[in-house]
């Protein structure tokens, strides 16, 4: 079977599953729901893997494009087309594999929930939308997927709609995303206005052929490339939770934990990174925006990492960790290390999904409790969850030879090579902090003695196989995912041929522009030194965490910290009061403005005009109705008068 010709079925299958589960199956048919809910993304995954395999082993390095339908409005024609190239192949791989594993995990985790069918319908819908996003051949299809995942995110955050907070969080996510989406739309339309097409391939070709078009001044003192990339990046800020639009992501943890793993850690939030890399040719032509991207990424990375240090909710820790790691990815993209960004995206997908699923297992065991202050010593009770969680932590901390080490190291190397030393410094500091707060969560959760209630302790149990098997598989990925991108330098130093598979695979996607300097090459010694530094920092972070929270120490360090530096502790625990700031600066003025509009524009002007109109009409009617006396003789007289008038008119 030629999987490549069936490309469009990859996103279509999950959509089909969502439709079947959402529209045809009844609530009670749990087995059928499970079957459809797993079969659709499973088939999609198999198809996707086959297609990637066939593409990667194929002779043609050309991107594969498949148009399904042509949407024509007037003279404008946009294809509903799919594109398989190295970048979308990597993304498809991550999305389908991680997505499918999380689907399997969900069967166990969500087994006793009320809206089981709804959940799987939405989850399939998300898979479809995400695959549409990554496989779309032009901005419009991508945008449809982009909005689709936003919708699913909203639906799934607000999954527990009978509680108070989740729907609020869903709304917040949606509204914050809208801000970014709007900018995305503006950027997209600017591209369309300039090039008359939205196809990735065509735009890249045109820009490569004539870079001066993209460099020409456009608006606000920016070049076309600058304007478009800025707009797109603002879109990415929303979707990928960068400063200042990151605030929705920690709240998004109100959704079910597998949702957090899939959408708000592994896949959807990386869409922004994917999009930036997808349009790398434009970013390369807009160095100032690239630098801005890097700066935002670095700031987000360290900012979120510091907050992560002071969080007690296990999922919040992971959420801020996600924000921080996404910052890393943008840092990479900003400094021109696009492959590193995608590399980190892929490895991160595995270990972050693993972390979330592990935390889900913990929460499952704790009967819904998420506060780490009530945990401790869980490793005895969770013999499978603990090692997998630990592996993920090691991976994210950057301990070799796990996945996180290679990707993170490549980012830092990229930053250093591009002479962005300050950014590199921030990155390395963040790496230490990451190790520190991640091990804090490990120690508080699994080590020491149990701090929860007796009931909870009695209830503790390892999760069922359907949940632990995905954990193990993901752990395998977290260990090995990095090996596809072992740096060229290491291979060379070890005397082997270059086996940096990922780099070679992705290189066709990264545009090489004349006059744009991308070839920063570090000497092998520098590269090795940088690796050692980052490993040392990671180990340092781990050791600090062990000193502070390891063993039976529990929460003592937190208390000491709060006593010694109450201001800093409160600042961190309250996430720098950003939500409050936004509330004061943006939300309330907006609400006030809206209220003003309502009172003055709507009630006074619009309603007033209507009331005046209605009053006039009513008055006319009140006066006019006296002519309808109900007395037929009056009517006859009107009639007769009319006849006379007609008569007069006809004669004279």
């Amino acid at each position, binding site marked *: 079977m030629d999987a490549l010709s069936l490309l469009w079925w990859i996103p279509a299958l999950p959509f089909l599953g969502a439709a079947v589960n959402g529209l045809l199956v009844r609530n009670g048919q749990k087995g059928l729901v499970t079957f459809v809910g797993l079969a659709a993304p499973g088939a999609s995954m198999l198809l996707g893997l086959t297609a990637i395999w066939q593409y990667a082993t194929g002779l043609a390095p050309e991107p594969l494009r498949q148009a399904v339908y042509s949407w024509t409005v007037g003279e404008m024609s946009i294809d509903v087309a799919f594109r398989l190239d190295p970048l979308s192949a990597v993304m498809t791989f991550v999305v389908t594999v991680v997505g499918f594993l999380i689907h399997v995990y969900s069967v166990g985790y969500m087994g006793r929930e009320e809206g089981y069918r709804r959940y799987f319908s939405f989850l399939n819908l998300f898979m479809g939308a995400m695959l549409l996003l990554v496989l779309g051949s032009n901005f419009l299809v991508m945008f449809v997927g982009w909005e689709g995942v936003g919708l699913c995110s909203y639906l799934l955050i607000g999954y527990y709609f009978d509680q108070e907070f989740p729907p609020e969080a869903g709304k917040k996510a949606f509204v914050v995303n809208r801000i970014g989406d709007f900018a995305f739309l503006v950027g997209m339309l600017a591209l369309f206005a300039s090039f008359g097409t939205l196809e990735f391939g065509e735009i890249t070709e045109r820009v490569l052929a004539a870079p001066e078009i993209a460099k020409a001044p456009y608006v606000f003192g920016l070049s076309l490339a600058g304007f478009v990339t800025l707009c797109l990046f603002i879109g990415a800020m929303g979707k990928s939770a960068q400063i200042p639009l990151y605030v929705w992501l920690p709240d998004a943890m109100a959704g079910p934990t597998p949702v957090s793993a899939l959408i708000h850690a592994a896949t959807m939030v990386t869409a922004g990174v994917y999009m930036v890399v997808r349009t790398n040719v434009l970013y390369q032509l807009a160095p100032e925006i690239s630098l801005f991207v890097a700066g935002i990424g670095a700031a987000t990375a360290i900012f979120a990492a510091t907050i992560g240090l002071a969080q007690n909710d296990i999922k919040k820790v992971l959420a801020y960790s996600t924000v921080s790691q996404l910052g890393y990815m943008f840092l990479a993209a900003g400094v021109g290390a696009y492959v590193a960004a995608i590399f980190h995206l892929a490895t991160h997908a595995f270990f972050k999904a693993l972390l979330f699923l592990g935390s889900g297992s913990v929460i499952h065991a704790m009967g819904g409790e998420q506060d780490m202050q009530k945990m401790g010593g869980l490793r005895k009770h969770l013999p499978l969850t603990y090692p997998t969680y630990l592996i993920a932590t090691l991976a994210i901390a950057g301990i070799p030879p796990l996945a996180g080490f290679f990707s993170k190291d490549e980012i830092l190397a990229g930053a250093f090579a591009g002479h962005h030393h300050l950014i590199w410094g921030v990155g390395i500091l963040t790496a230490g902090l990451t190790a520190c707060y991640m091990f804090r969560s490990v120690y508080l959760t699994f080590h020491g003695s149990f701090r929860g209630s007796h009931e909870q302790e009695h209830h503790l149990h390892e999760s069922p196989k359907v949940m632990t098997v995905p954990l193990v598989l993901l752990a395998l990925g977290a260990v090995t995912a990095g090996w596809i991108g072992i740096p060229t330098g290491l291979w060379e130093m070890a005397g082997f041929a270059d086996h940096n598979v990922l780099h070679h695979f992705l290189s066709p996607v990264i545009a090489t522009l004349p006059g744009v300097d991308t070839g920063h090459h570090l000497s092998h010694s520098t590269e090795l030194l940088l690796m050692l530094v980052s490993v040392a920092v990671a180990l340092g972070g781990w050791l600090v965490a062990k000193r502070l929270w390891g063993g039976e120490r529990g929460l003592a360090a937190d208390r000491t910290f709060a006593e010694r530096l109450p201001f800093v502790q409160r600042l961190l625990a309250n996430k720098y009061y950003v939500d409050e700031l936004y509330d004061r600066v943006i939300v309330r003025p907006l609400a006030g403005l809206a209220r003003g509009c309502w009172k003055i524009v709507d009630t006074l002007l619009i309603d007033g005009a209507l009331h005046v109109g209605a009053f006039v009409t009513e008055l006319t009617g009140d006066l006019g109705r006296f002519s309808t006396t109900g007395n037929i*003789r*009056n009517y006859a*007289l009107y009639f*007769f*008068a009319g*006849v*006379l008038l007609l*008569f*007069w008119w006809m*004669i004279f």
Partner: protein
Amino acid sequence: MELLAFVVFGLAALVSAIVVVAHRSPIHSTLSLVVTLVSTAALFLMLGSPFLAALQVLLYTGAILVLFLFVIMLLNVQRERTGAAARSPFQTWSALIAAFVLAGAVCRLLWDAHGEAVLAPLTEDFVALRNTASLLFRDYLLPFEMVGLLLLVAVVVASWVARRGGADSEEESR
């Protein structure tokens, strides 16, 4: 001779028409209308249409006005009440003025159009009933049939509307 007949029947028609309108008793109004119609029938005869004259008497006075009388007696309609409350001077005066204006204008127009023109003598052909019949049943067959249908519908509707003890009738609840 013809002039005498016209004066007699015309005056009869006019006077009885005024009585129709002016008399307060519906019975007297109806009977005056009978006189008007019979006079008009005579005028039809003078205008060379014995068919219309006979039809006028047969249909109008013999059937329609009998129906009026029948209904008036059935409902026992009394004379119209007089008195301030029942009067509406505006209606009355405007009606009078409008009618006089109309009549005046029409009369003026007709007089201007025809003046003292006198009719040509009647021809046998015009009066012959056979010709009238062939016109009615040949050239005007479709309207004739449609009028028949109309009358059928009217009969059905009338008997339905006026039926005793209908669902919406007060009669039944008593």
